[in-house]
């Protein structure tokens, strides 16, 4: 292994290049969503005096922190080549479970822990087991668990919201600022950073990418594809439950329709952020930018007095445009590659190394 260190040491220039390259890589990866985000910030900043204010940004952060938590969770199954539609149901059901536990007199930390761990285990045993181990299509399974969890939520509550005005600790946690930064935002960003660390620096993170990139290659390399898939659905369910808990604090209530269809907003954020629908490509930083884009757009439209109906229209256009541009760029790159390969000079060692070409006769 001494050789190994020698190679690292003999290439200090490469090291610097590597940092430069990864910066360049990041710039090109996020230039689509990044450009649109900057454009929005400039347009709203110039035209609306109320936009570029501390209180507005506090508002943007706290009202999108929950979407960020959901989107970070959804990024995991999507990177592994799947999808989790059921997060909205898990989110609502987790809020209801927390409310019931707290109203039943359980202390807050225990109630939160039980809710999150319960969702994690349930996600593993339903979505994870069926998709990972039984190979059932992810769309069908998670659509099913979405309607089931939403149905259970309606059944438990009789369709009514549960108000939670007495839980001062939780409410304060969700609505206060620390040094001017919303607590909700801190929780969201902590989840983001933790997620980035897991995906970038752990073996599990690498496995998620490889399962999404080429499940057969992953399997032949000894990776348990089923176990990796199961874990991604457990993570997305666990984070959906955390989102549900934060929502209870923010709204001081829980109910069966809380955060309904957040799975679609979350998916839009993840996809705008550059995660490939087929898996294997994308980052949580992209997901963050996707969420930021949606948050800035919503706030800007609101301040400008433009109908909020435009939000859906613009989101849809940006989503389709960003994926289309990506697709076209990839196609151009691959045609360029074929040309390059055609021009590859054949190395001179051919003559020497190919044996038995028949001079022997």
């Amino acid at each position, binding site marked *: 292994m001494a*050789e*190994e*260190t020698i*190679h*690292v040491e003999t*290439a200090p220039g490469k*090291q610097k290049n*590597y940092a430069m*390259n*990864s910066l360049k*890589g990041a710039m090109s990866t996020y230039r689509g969503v990044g450009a649109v985000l900057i454009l929005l910030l400039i347009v709203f900043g110039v035209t609306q005096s109320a936009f570029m204010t501390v209180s507005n940004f506090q508002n943007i952060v706290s009202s999108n922190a929950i979407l960020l938590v959901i989107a970070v969770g959804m990024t995991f199954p999507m990177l592994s080549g799947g999808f989790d539609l059921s997060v909205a149901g898990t989110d609502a059901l987790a809020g209801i479970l927390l409310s019931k536990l707290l109203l039943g007199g359980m202390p807050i930390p225990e109630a939160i822990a039980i809710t999150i761990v319960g969702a994690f285990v349930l996600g593993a045993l339903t979505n994870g087991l069926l998709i990972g181990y039984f190979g059932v299509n992810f769309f069908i399974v998670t659509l099913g668990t979405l309607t089931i969890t939403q149905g259970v939520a309606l059944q438990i509550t009789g369709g009514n919201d549960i108000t939670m005005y007495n839980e001062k600790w939780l409410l304060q946690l969700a609505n206060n600022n620390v040094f001017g930064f919303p607590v909700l935002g801190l929780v969201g960003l902590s989840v983001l950073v933790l997620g980035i660390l897991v995906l970038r*620096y*752990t*073996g*599990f*993170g*690498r*496995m998620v*990418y*490889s399962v999404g*990139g*080429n499940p*057969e*290659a*992953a399997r*032949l*390399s*000894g*990776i348990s594809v089923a176990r*990796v898939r199961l874990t991604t659905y457990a993570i997305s369910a666990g984070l959906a439950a955390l989102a549900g808990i934060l929502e209870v604090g923010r709204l001081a209530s829980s109910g069966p329709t809380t955060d309904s269809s957040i799975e679609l907003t979350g998916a839009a954020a993840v996809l705008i952020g550059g995660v*490939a629908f087929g898996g*294997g*490509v994308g980052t949580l930083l992209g997901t963050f930018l996707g969420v930021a884009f949606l948050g800035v757009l919503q706030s800007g439209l609101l301040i400008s007095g433009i109908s909020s109906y435009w939000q859906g229209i613009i989101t849809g256009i940006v989503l389709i445009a960003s994926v289309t541009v990506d697709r076209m760029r990839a196609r151009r*790159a*691959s045609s360029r*590659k*074929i040309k390059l*390969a*055609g021009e*590859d000079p*054949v*190395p001179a*060692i*051919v003559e*020497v*190394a*190919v*044996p*038995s*070409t*028949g*001079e*022997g*006769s």
Partner: protein
Amino acid sequence: MSELSTLPGDPSVSALQSRPFLVATVVSKRFGAVQALNEVSLAVGPGEIVGLAGENGSGKSTLAKILTGLIRPDSGELSVNGQAVTFANPGDALEMGIAGVTQEVCVVPYLSVAENVLLTRHRRFTSVYTLAQLERDAKPLLDRVGLTCNPRAQFASLRPGEHVLVEIGKSLARDPRLLLMDEVTTRIGGRDAERVFEILLQLRSAGVSIVYITHRLEEILRLCDRTVVLRDGRLVGEMSRAQASAESISRMMVGRDASPYQRPRVAETHENRLELRNVRVPEIVGSVSFNVRPGEAVGLCGLVGSGRTEILETIAGIRKAQGGEILVSGLPVKSGSLTAAKRMGISFVPEDRHKQGLLLESSTRMNFSLGRWRALRLVSRVQETAMARLYSHKFNMRLNEFERKVSTLSGGNQQKVMIGRALSSEPKILLLDEPTRGVDVGARAEVFEVIKELLESGMAIVLASSDMVELRALSHSIIVLYDRHVVGALTAEEASEERLSFMMSGGT
């Protein structure tokens, strides 16, 4: 080349009696750095069965795809009945009376037999038909290929042999004047193959031209009025039925005279690194036994589907042996467990880089380190890059830029990444499946060098391939497979290319 003069083939013999139906003139096609087809000319007369023979990569399938409109040639001309044509797609070829049964799947498994047979007929969006009408239309086609199954049966529910008959029926739906058959019998058993031959002979007497592509020499001898041999994308000879023999065709396919080659000598030891004792491999008839010593390479020679991949996958722990023992340095390996095999020092490089090997959208570094991660351990990019650099340097792979997406590398470099990854677990036994498939000559030579170095350093290697040059250059002994049987074991000295080609094509 000197061997051409020794060929019994004389092109003048093949002069056609009547006006040819299809003529291809100096057709060429290039894929990237590979000249797949180089100025090949071919004429096919009505009512003639022309055999197209050649090794893997000789250009047979490329020619077949050009003739059926699946790909367009870079240069050269096609003419049908004396009229110049260009095919933009298979539909154009069908219009001109050219249909093919190819290796690609061209049926819809969930539709009925009748619907599949008529797939090329109802091609307009506005076609309206009833089930009864459909069956009425399909009936004569099914009769022609002798299929007695219910026309409403789902295609997927049929036997593989019947699948081929349905595909032939489908190709007859547009009354072709020329039918192209690409390796159809490799998928089916003997009785169904007989049925296919009967159909072809009937078609011939009805004046239909047939281009028959196969690896199986006995089929060529039996069916073909004339045989054309391709090698490295060039047409190297033709022979009439009278001139053709299994030996003459395989000599022409190989086209080289054997020359002795210095392969690394095996260390003087009686220790077996890998030992297969009567291993019953799933889907292979009989049992497989062989030994590999340190520094020795054993070749598994056979065509696609002959069972070579199954043997490798069983050793690698991907498939479970149904009996027998696999021993590494005398210790038995638990069968059917990839991780157990890996722990014993067995490393496997699969055949299909794109489907089984690489994360195409990820970096070279990621691909190098695939499979070395533990879920709850941290990974380090710097260390991964160092590992990748170490192994690419050690085997002279001349790779740098490890952050580049692996899909942008050449086929040869992608192959090196796969071999490098397999080596990074410091294996004692390396299993290689078609290590030079789809790489250019230069990269191929480099892969050869890597393998030779490995042998010199005492690696035990099992090499599965259909490429005889590769097998003879690298392996010390060769096991030949044909149609899921082990048909022979030869030492490197006994294994002439003619003999290998003959045996792996089912000659006895």
